[in-house]
C-alpha cells in the first residue's frame, strides 16, 4: 500500500515534467505543470494521513471517533493549491499574449530569446 501511495507521487511528478519537456502547446504545458504541482500536494496529504482517521473537524462526531488526520499538512496543501492556481493563471495570461504577439503557441517555436 505504501508503495502504491508514494509511487503515485513520483509518477505524477515525472509525468508532469515529461509533459512540460515534450509539449508543443503552451496551454498543454501549463496543465502539465499543474499535474506536477498536484504531486507535491498529494505528498503532503499522504504524509498527514492516518488509516481509519477522520477529518480534523470536531463537530457531529460519532460515539467513538478514532484519531484525526494531520491538520497541519492540510493547511500546507491548501496554501500550495493557492500558489499553484496563481502561477497557472499568470502562465495562461502569458500564453494569451504570446499567441497574440508571436502568432504561435508552440514553445519550441519561440525563438525570441536565444544566443
Amino acid at each position: 500500500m505504501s508503495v502504491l501511495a508514494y509511487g503515485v507521487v513520483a509518477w505524477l511528478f515525472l509525468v508532469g515534467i515529461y509533459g512540460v519537456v515534450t509539449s508543443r502547446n503552451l496551454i498543454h504545458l501549463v496543465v502539465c505543470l499543474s499535474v506536477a504541482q498536484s504531486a507535491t500536494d498529494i505528498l503532503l496529504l499522504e504524509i498527514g494521513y492516518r488509516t481509519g482517521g477522520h477529518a480534523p473537524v470536531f463537530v457531529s462526531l460519532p460515539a467513538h471517533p478514532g484519531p484525526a488526520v494531520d491538520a497541519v499538512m492540510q493547511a500546507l496543501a491548501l496554501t500550495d493549491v493557492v500558489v499553484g492556481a496563481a502561477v497557472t493563471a499568470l502562465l495562461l495570461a502569458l500564453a494569451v499574449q504570446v499567441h497574440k504577439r508571436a502568432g504561435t503557441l508552440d514553445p519550441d517555436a519561440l525563438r525570441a530569446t536565444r544566443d
Partner: protein
Amino acid sequence: MDLVVSTSAVVPASVVVPLAGAALMAGFSWLLPRWARDLIAIAVALATTTLTLILIAASAGHPMIYWFSGWRPSGGMVIGIDYAVCPLGAGMASLAGVLASAALVYCWRYFDSARGRHHALVLIFLAASVDFCLTGDLFNLFVAFELVAVTAFALTGYNAGHPAPLQGAINFAVTNSLGGMSVLMGVGFLYARTGSLNLAQIGQALAGRHADGLIVVAFALLTGGFLVKAAVVPFHFWLPDAYGSAPIPVCVLFAGVMSELGLFAVIRVWDTVFSGLAGGSGPRMRAVLLGFGILTAVVGAVMALAQIQLKRMLAFVTMSHLGIYLIGVGLLTPLGLAGASLLVIGDGLAKSALFLGVGVVQHQRASVSEIKLRGSGRGLAVTGVTIVLGALVLAGLPPYVSSAGHALLVDAADQAGLPWVEIVIALSVILSSGAVLRAAGRIWLGWGDSESSRPDTGTADDPGEEAEDRSDTADADGKLGANGLTGVDRDQDGRERSGRLRRVPLTMVLPPLALLAIGLGLGLTSGIEEHAAAAFSDRAAYAAAVLGTHGGSIPTGGRVVVPASPAASAGGVLTDLGQVLAALCVAGIALDRRAVALRRALAAGTGWLRRLHSGLVGDQVTWLAAGLALLAALSEAALH
C-alpha cells in the same frame, strides 16, 4: 553574542509596512494622482529600508527571535512561526529595500500605467524578500520564495507587447515553479521525519543522526530548488532570458536581490538544519558546492563576453558573480560567508547601477545592442562614467566594499587550504568586467568593429528586444494618453524617436550614482568586516533560544576572526588593482582590430556553449531534472 526573544514592533513592521502599502496601492490607486502614487511607493520603500537598518543595529551582537500570533513554544515544541533576525538577514533585507527604492525613483514617470499596479508589485516583492531573509520557519521560507517568484514573473512580462519578454517570463515561471515544487517536497520529507516546520527544531531533531536516503534527498531537493532561484549551473538557463527582456527597474531588483536570496536560503538551511548530521562531512559538501560555484562563475564569464545585447550581457555578469558568492558560501566557514555577504552588498549596488545606466542608454538611444550603439555615447557622459565605474567596482576596485569582501573571501579560501580558488575568481571577474568595459569602450569611444565577430548575430536584430512598451497609452477609454506633440517622429509606442535632443531626467541619472556612492561609503567604513559574519553558526544555541529550553539569553560562540595584518591588506589592494587592470586589458584586446582572428577562434570554440542556451523551455526543464538528480547523487556522496 547573545540570542534574545524580542517583542519589538519593528520586526513585524518591516513586513507589515510594505504589505499595507502594496495593498492600498493595488486597491485604491485610482483615487490618487500619478505623482502621489510614485511618492507614496518611494516613501514606503524608504520606510522599509529604515526599519531593516534598525534591525541590523538592533540585532548586532544579540540576534532576536520574534514569535508571531503570540505562540511561544511549549514543552520543547514549537507551535507558531518565528522570525530569527540576524545582521546577515537584516542586511540582505536592507539591500532589497535600498534597491527597491532606487528602482522606484528611477520609475518616476517611466511606467505610464494608468494605475499603481507596478508599484504594488515592487512593494510586495520587497515585503516577500524581507520575510525570506528574516524567517525562522521552513514553510514560511517556501511561501516567501513563491511570493518573490510570483511578483517577479508578473514584473518580467511587463512589456507584454513583444515576444521576448513574454518568452523570458514563461521560461522564468516554468523553471522557478518546478524549483518551488522541489523545495516543497523537501519540506514535506523533513516534516515527516522530524515532525516540525521550524528550522531550529528540525536542526535539533536531526543533530547527531546519520543521513539516510530520506534526509539526503530532502537536502538535495531543498538545495536544488533554491539553486534554481540562484541561477546556478545547470539550473541557470532561465536567467539570461528573464533578465535580458525584463524592464530595467525590474532587472535592478532581480540582479541585486532575487538570485542572492536563493544562496541565502541554501546556507541558512544548511547551517541550521543539516550541518549537525553525524557522518556528514564538511570537506565533501564543500567540494560539491564549490564545484557548482566554479562552474557557474566560469560559464557566466565566458557567456558574458559573447553577448552583444547589453542586458543579456549583464545577466551573465550577474550569473558569474553568483557563482563567486556560491564559492564563498560553499567554503562553509564564517569567514567565507562574511566575504560573500560583503560581495553581495557591494556587487549588488554596482550591478544595479550598471542596469540603471544601460536603462538610460536605452531610454535615450532606443537600443541595447552594443553593435548598433557604437559611437553613439556622445552626450551621455555621466552614464558612461557610471557604467565604467560599475564595471571597475565589479572587478574589485578598492576601496569599495566589494574589494573588502573579495579580500575576506580569499583569506577564507586560504584558510580552507584552497588557494587556487582565488585564481578562478580572478579569471571570472576579469572576463566579465572586461566584457562590460568593452561595451563601454565601443559605445562611448567608438572603438572596435562595426560588425560582430560572430557568424550569427542572434537576437540583436529583432526589433522587439530594443523597444520597451513602457507607455501603455491606451487607458480604459481607449484614448491615447500622450499625444499632442507635433513635428516629432512617433513610433507605434507613442515615444519620440529622436532622443538625442531630450535631456535625461534626473530621476534616472541620480539613482545609479547614489548606489555607487553608498558602496564607496560602506567600503570606507572601518570594521565592516567584523560585523559581516552570520550569527547562527552556533546551531545548538540557536535551537535552545528558539525552543526556550534556556530562560533568557544564551551566550554563543565568539566573533569571526579577521586577519588584520597590514601586509595582507596591502597585498589585497595590489591584487584588486591588478584585476582591474587585467579587465581593462581584456576590453582593449576585445576592441582591437588586430585581434580579429583571436576573437573569431574563441567564438568558434565556445559556439557549443552558446547553442545550449537555446531559450527553449523544454531544454531548460530537462537540464533542471538532470541537475536535481546530479545534486542528489553528489549529496549522497557528501553526506554519508
